[in-house]
């Protein structure tokens, strides 16, 4: 299956809608261990992405990913703007000259590396990387398998739950020290929402 423009448009649309719908949950999670703005920030950013859906859909995929990244950088208003923005900017950069789904792990991996560099963080520090890194590993290990989508979905869900006992050492939650233990990380959760939206859209394709 080669990625078609119609499918790409649906992926962006559904992912944005799902993030917007999950804003209250993300905010509640962030109020527990952060500054309580993750939901409203992500909502603002993805509403801006939705408002540019026609432009984004008309662009080649690599340019479209960069437009999404730049839009998030300019509109989110919190650290998650540059973090998610860098993911899409780097993924767009990496996609040039590559094809999907064959090079998906490569492209996704470039995005993950950019998040890691921007946040000077790595997996295990109770951040979105605790979802993105395991998903990247699944994409590498299970590439080409018929049940890849289901595996990505499960990996993301399980990875979110694994952030609960973690102690945050990066981001706002790190100020809480041991008190960050026992809560789902909001960034891990928003990454999972995005990934699940992509999985559902791909599964529902005609």
């Amino acid at each position, binding site marked *: 299956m080669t990625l078609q423009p119609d499918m790409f448009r649906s992926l962006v649309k559904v992912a944005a809608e799902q993030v917007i719908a999950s804003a209250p949950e993300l905010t509640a999670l962030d109020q527990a261990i952060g500054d309580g703005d993750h939901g409203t*920030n992500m909502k603002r950013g993805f509403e801006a992405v939705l408002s540019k859906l026609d432009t984004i859909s008309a662009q080649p995929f690599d340019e479209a990913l960069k437009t999404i990244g730049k839009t998030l950088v300019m509109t989110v208003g*919190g650290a998650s*703007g540059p973090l998610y923005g*860098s993911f899409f900017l780097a993924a767009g950069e990496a996609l040039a000259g590559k094809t999907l789904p064959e090079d998906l792990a490569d492209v996704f991996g470039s995005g993950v590396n950019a998040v890691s560099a921007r946040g000077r963080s790595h997996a295990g520090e109770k951040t979105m990387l605790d979802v993105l890194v395991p998903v990247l590993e699944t994409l590498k290990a299970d590439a080409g398998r018929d049940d890849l989508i289901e595996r990505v979905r499960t990996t993301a869900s399980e990875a979110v739950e694994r952030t609960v006992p973690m102690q945050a050492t990066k981001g706002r939650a790190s100020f809480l020290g041991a008190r960050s233990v026992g809560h789902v990380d909001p960034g891990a959760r928003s990454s999972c929402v995005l990934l699940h939206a992509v999985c559902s859209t791909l599964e529902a394709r005609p």
Partner: protein
Amino acid sequence: MNETVGIVIVSHSKDIAKGTADMVRQMVGSEVKVAFCGGNPDGGLGTNVASIIDAIDDAWSAKGVAILVDLGGAETNSEMAVEMLEPERRKMVVVCNAPIVEGAVMAATEAAGGSSLEQVRAVAEELTAG
């Protein structure tokens, strides 16, 4: 007058950013260019890349610009803003690892004496080392 390093203050709160800039101006006068920004794109608490880029432009100096930030998102957004500048300007802007109010005052005082960007940054960051 020789050009001095410009100072940019980035807080989640526009009031804190403005108050910090007021303090800096009272202490060093108008010989150092000071710009500030605060608030997310909707005007609530937060920071945003577009305003930071505007503030860098306002405080721009041939000697460079030192940015002082408050909490995590202000730092990440400031680093992103710097990366979105043209490559030749990018290396003339630094985000200081220093407390926002004390750092801004120390950085501006050092800048007023005509110091280099690296010296200005070092003086602001001494506050953290201590």
